[in-house]
């Protein structure tokens, strides 16, 4: 398996603020790589370095076998980028912008473009300034997905999209993956990345704190369960993987490690469940749980 993105130990400072602090990231060709982190963790900075828009202060960056700063133009022919906050020219229509981006990249497939416009339900005749945020996002997504490239760099690409369009987006990413494309998908929502990514890297305060396949990261995911039961839930506490059990008059709250979820749910069923809420772990919970100490240490330094 070859490597599409290989970042080794890069630093980037903006004045006195250290945005990236020894970041490493490897993305294998043909995979969807989830790039997870809270706001301000350094996701966009990393992607801009990959695009050659910023230059790393230190470290080595390889993108599709080239140097993103020196070979920017050559590499950009083989990749497409969708920023989290798409800005369009106010007096160009969405259709014009899509065609323009495709042509600037060096190739366009008009059939695929029209098909994507339909799937994303975009009216390409409207001027850039009249689009809502979600529609501007669609313009950039269509331009990226319609081009025949090896790598998609997507920086929180679905911000502002409704759930229906989010589903279309997921479908398109699966198709891209099936066509052998590599995708770097950055997001701050774990659930969004989970459904698409083969590999996940978690960035926090400028460095990667966790990386691996979903199974590798299973130990990180802990589901919150909130249930109303008829009989006493005390026995649940004895099960493996259950944490922080509270039982107040039949209102049970606890958290359970992902790998033990099946067993716990079976036991829960025996208790006569009358109401049940199960929440997947959020990135914030996950980071708090596993890196809480580190955050205070970093906070003290910064």
């Amino acid at each position: 398996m070859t490597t599409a993105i290989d970042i080794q130990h890069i630093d980037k400072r903006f004045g006195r603020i250290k945005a990236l602090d020894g970041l490493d990231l490897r993305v294998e060709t043909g995979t969807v790589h989830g790039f997870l982190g809270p706001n301000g963790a350094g996701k966009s900075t990393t992607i801009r370095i990959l695009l050659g828009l910023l230059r790393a202060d230190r470290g080595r960056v390889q993108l599709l076998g080239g140097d993103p700063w020196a070979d920017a133009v050559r590499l950009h022919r083989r990749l497409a980028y969708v920023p989290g906050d798409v800005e369009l020219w106010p007096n160009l229509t969405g259709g014009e912008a899509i065609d323009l981006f495709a042509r600037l990249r060096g190739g366009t497939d008009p059939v695929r473009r029209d098909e994507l416009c339909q799937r994303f339900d975009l009216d390409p005749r409207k001027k850039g300034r009249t689009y809502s945020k979600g529609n501007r996002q669609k313009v950039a997504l269509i331009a990226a997905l319609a081009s025949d490239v090896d790598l998609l760099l997507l920086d929180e690409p679905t911000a502002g999209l409704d759930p229906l369009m989010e589903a279309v987006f997921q479908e398109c990413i699966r198709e891209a993956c099936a066509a052998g494309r590599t995708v770097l998908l950055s997001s701050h929502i774990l659930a969004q990345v989970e459904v698409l990514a083969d590999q996940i890297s978690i960035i926090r305060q400028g460095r990667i704190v966790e990386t691996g396949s979903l199974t590798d990261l299973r130990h990180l995911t802990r589901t919150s369960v909130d249930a109303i039961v008829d009989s006493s839930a005390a026995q649940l506490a004895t099960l493996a993987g259950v944490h922080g059990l509270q039982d107040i008059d039949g209102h049970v709250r606890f958290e359970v490690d992902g790998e033990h979820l099946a067993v716990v749910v079976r036991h829960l069923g025996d208790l006569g469940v009358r109401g049940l809420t199960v929440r997947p772990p959020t990135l914030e919970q996950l980071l708090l749980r596993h890196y809480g100490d580190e955050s205070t240490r970093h906070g003290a330094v910064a």
Partner: protein
Amino acid sequence: MATVLVRRPVLAAPGQGGGRVTGTGTLLRFMLRRDRIRFPAWTLGLALLMGYFATALETFVESPADLEGLTAFSGSPAGALFGGPGFGFDDLTIERFLAGQYGLYVAIGAGLMGLLTVVRHTRAEERSGRAELIRASVVGRHAQLTAVLALAATMAAVVAILIGGLMASRGYGLGGSLLFGASVGAVALVFAGVAAVTVQLSEYPRAASGTAGALLGVAFVLRGLGDMAAAQGSGASWLSWLSPVGWSQQTAPYVHDRWWPLVISLAFALTAVAAGYALSARRDFGAGLVPPRPGPARAAAWLDGPLALAFRLHRASLIGWSVGLLAAGLAYGSFTQPLLDGFTDAPEDMVAIMGGAENLLDGYLGTMGLTMALAVGVYAVLAMQTLRSEESEGRAESVLATAVSRSAWIGSHLVVTAVGVPWLLLVAGAGMGVGAAVSTGDAGSFGGLLLGHVAHTPAVWLLLAAAAVLYAVAPRVLPLIWVVLGYGLIVGYFAPILEIPASAVRLSPFAHVGEHPLEEVSVVAVLVLTMLAAVTAQVARLVFRRDVVGRT
């Protein structure tokens, strides 16, 4: 236990008129905070400009004979066109000359201050979406417009007081000084009112300031025609009374000291403001009065590279500038015959001072060439400023993420603008040529005029390249380029009167080519300026290539 009585703010009762302007005071303070640099820069800047004119003139005028020399030009129709009606120029004093000749330019500056201030805090805020947040708070429908008008009125008053005080402090008559200050402030007020209307019409802040600015230009030309007719003693001198700038000049400070023309200004400003309020109540938030239309679903086949994109982005502005410069050229060209007529009626010694009627024509046409070159310089600088917004608003990033290099990106914008420069000069020259030919019934000056205009191209190129270097170094220092343009204007117009030393004059890029047809075009200057511009543009490209994107 003590009871604490919490006083809650009393809300304006619904249905009361006060509800529409709720929050005006807070917004005004907020605008003052945002404009903490801009406010003193405009007001002090205009006062200092006037102070500079006064100091320079006092240094230059040492004897009554010097004053008479000034009258010779300023009392002529050409002087009236570029100065004013020239009240009391037959018995000239320094303050009369300052108010009558230079007052016009300070007043134009005040007009720009007024209209730009209003656009900045209304339509520009709506366009950016920030106003939506403001309007969603406890803020009345008319609060924003009311607050910015209060701000503009305050700026106008400060300018009036500063200039009035400055003139009085130099020992000129107190009444005349205050009136002169007020007449400058009145122009700011009028064009703030005009902008209150234009911001309602279009969704674009640039269109709003462009329309108001064009009206300021019309006001300048109208009073120019009227004042010229007045100086000749025949013709449509009433045209001056159609111009808001004219009303301010008709106060005749230090001569008649009339305050009543300013009543017209005030009434006009109030009417415009009332119209602005009425129009703003008829439109949706964020919308203009003209609804948007759908555009093409696909890009035209030619829109396929960075150069084509740059052209597409500059196209609207190029068309606008072409139309504007053509109109200005036609207007100024048509002044040619009245100018000559005025001169043949003038006393013989006066004609002699100006070097004869033949030179006067060439001198006028040459000066117009320089004027148009400076105007095209403004175009070039504004074109560079669009690069700044392309970068700060994130669109440059999207383009540079495709197979477009930094060099190609900045280079394509430079090429499009650089090609636009001789084109616009050609259009302006053609307008002047046609206007002059129709006016004099003789097309003989047409070729010379075209050459005289287009010859300035390398000077504007150098300005453009210098602007590009500033932008490449750091986008926020780009506005420094206005200093070069302003310097070129002062040197170009006032070097002889203000006795600016030749070595200082040479610093202006516009001072080398020569004002054809009065002077010969210097081929050496053209070649040297072109080379300098090419080298400077290359520096800009190299500097930009090494920098990151997304700077401020």
